[in-house]
């Protein structure tokens, strides 16, 4: 198990390096980052000042090394637009996005796992068809449209929920639903498929032959095995959600990382853009690594050799 953990860690680090390279090269897509950063109304002087300030005149390798080493210590540079250190801004906005992501994940799991379990226990019945229909519909629904529909009915017509900002916990309800529903079909299907397979397995038959009561058979024996792949999927989907939060945050005017990303893209604030992409990517890498480890831990066949 330890060897496995180290090997996966090595891979994770390599991937992080590759991603950092990609993120670094992102700003060169426009040709001249100094010009992009300076904006349209800049004079040649402004552009040169920016080039010097951000070190865009140095050789690429040096720039990359410098940027990476600074990033590892938490220094993501300085944003002229916001007149703040990038790290400061990002970490002030991060908690809101984390909360939103967590709520969305909780919503998604609370809805999809029980639904998948029940659908597997009663295949081809009404509840099963309902679950599968929900999955199909959920996969086809554009997230921004769903968010607007929620706002229209719950915010405008019925006036039940606030439609923007983050004052109270009520503000988080619609954004969490709008963000989380996209994950629901995949998790529901995986849970259902996993449960179907597990319920048909021999050890469940043994458990029933021992006279164990149905809840024990379901939770202790069946779910314990069926949920292993779902854990990995949930971790991965959480990573996707954080990336997709940009749409939801802009619609609900939530001042999180996604909204910040949106603003900096609009303004051409390159250091902030770069930093956000890098942080989200690294977060995803950490998540998948943890999911791998959790997966291995839950399955004794991997944990105990």
């Amino acid at each position, binding site marked *: 198990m330890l060897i496995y953990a180290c090997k996966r860690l090595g*891979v994770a680090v390599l991937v992080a390096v590759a991603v950092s390279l990609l993120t670094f090269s992102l700003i060169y897509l*426009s040709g001249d980052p100094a010009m992009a950063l300076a904006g349209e109304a800049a004079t040649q002087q402004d552009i040169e000042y920016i080039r010097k300030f951000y070190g865009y005149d140095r050789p690429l390798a040096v720039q990359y090394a410098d940027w990476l080493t600074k990033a590892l210590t938490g220094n993501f540079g300085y944003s002229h637009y916001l007149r703040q250190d990038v790290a400061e801004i990002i970490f002030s906005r991060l908690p809101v996005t984390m909360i939103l992501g967590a709520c969305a994940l909780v919503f998604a799991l609370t809805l999809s796992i029980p639904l998948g379990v029940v659908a597997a226990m009663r295949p081809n019945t009404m509840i099963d068809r309902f679950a599968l229909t929900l999955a199909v519909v959920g996969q086809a629904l554009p997230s921004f449209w769903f968010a607007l529909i929620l706002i229209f009915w719950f915010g405008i017509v019925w006036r039940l929920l606030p439609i923007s900002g983050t004052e109270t916990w009520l503000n988080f309800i619609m954004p969490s639903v709008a963000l989380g529903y996209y994950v629901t079909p995949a998790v529901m299907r995986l849970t259902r498929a996993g449960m179907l397979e597990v319920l048909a397995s021999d050890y469940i038959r043994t458990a029933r032959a021992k006279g164990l009561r149905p809840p024990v058979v379901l939770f202790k024996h069946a779910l314990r095995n069926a949920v292993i792949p779902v854990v990995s999927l949930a971790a*991965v989907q959480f990573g996707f959600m954080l990336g997709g939060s*940009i749409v939801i945050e802009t619609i609900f005017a939530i001042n999180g990382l996604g909204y910040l990303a949106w603003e900096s*893209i609009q303004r051409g604030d390159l250091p902030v853009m770069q930093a956000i*992409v890098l942080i989200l*990517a690294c977060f995803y890498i950490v998540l998948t690594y943890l999911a791998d480890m959790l997966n291995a831990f839950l399955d004794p066949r991997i944990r105990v050799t």
Partner: protein
Amino acid sequence: MAPPQDIAAEAVAGSRAVLNVGEILEPAPAELLRRRIFGHAGLLIGSGVLLLIVMVALLAPWLAPHDPLDQDLTRKLIPPIWHDSAKANWVYPLGTDGFGRDYLSRLIYGARISLLIGVAAMCISGIIGTTIGVAAGYFGGKVDMMVNFIITSRLSLPVVLVALAVVSLVGNSLWIVISVLGLLIWDRFAVVVRSSTQQVRNLDYVAAAQALGCSKARIIMTEIMPNIANNLIVVATLEMAHAILLEAALSFLGLGVQPPQPSWGLMVAEGKGYMFFDPWLVGIPGAALFALVLAINLMGDGVRDVTAPERRN
């Protein structure tokens, strides 16, 4: 003891009896496929709706009653025909938007944009993903490790963010959007093609082809590709739907297709401000997106069910 010929006759009679007693002879494969296709409601509905949308897109110039780009502020915000208002009329059956443009015509031309982007991005990502997937699955070893590494790196990138960033830096013509999407969504192609190729690669007829001395390229084209085709089609439909949704999100945020083009995502964004009084501006293009993506997904699910029913759901 019965004489040998009687025992033989008995055996034949016995096996014929089996065929007569309750057993149904399996029909020919083509017939079986035909039956499965027409028995599958999702596949029929999905393909039907998709076909309808494709026809509408192709025949847009003849179907659309007005020019989708033609603005006239005197006729702005006319509600659709099902609204019970004095302004609604059959000249503009789906009403007009904030600039007075006919919504029906914009909807029809919007189908073109969605379908074009969906198909083009799907093709680009399909070529990229299939190539590296086949390479990884067929050659294994270091090539496989390399490809896995590339896939993992790509999966770590937040797609929407990167797409937005790239488009904002490079520019946002239609083809740039298509290329960016195509270069970002090939991962599922790679993963599925890789595992399918691995499965097929170990089968006997591939070994036979190798023993005959066929070149690797030939083996890939004639033995491997046809057998991963089923999975490939399913993934292709899923990624087409994915591309369409991504483009809609990008256009909604203003960094996809640019106004005055009638992208459905853009139409939703433009209608957002009027949602309080004129919700149809948001409802109609969104519903169109939903219908298109749903149809494609149903079709993809249907193809998967029909070609490999044992893997259903």
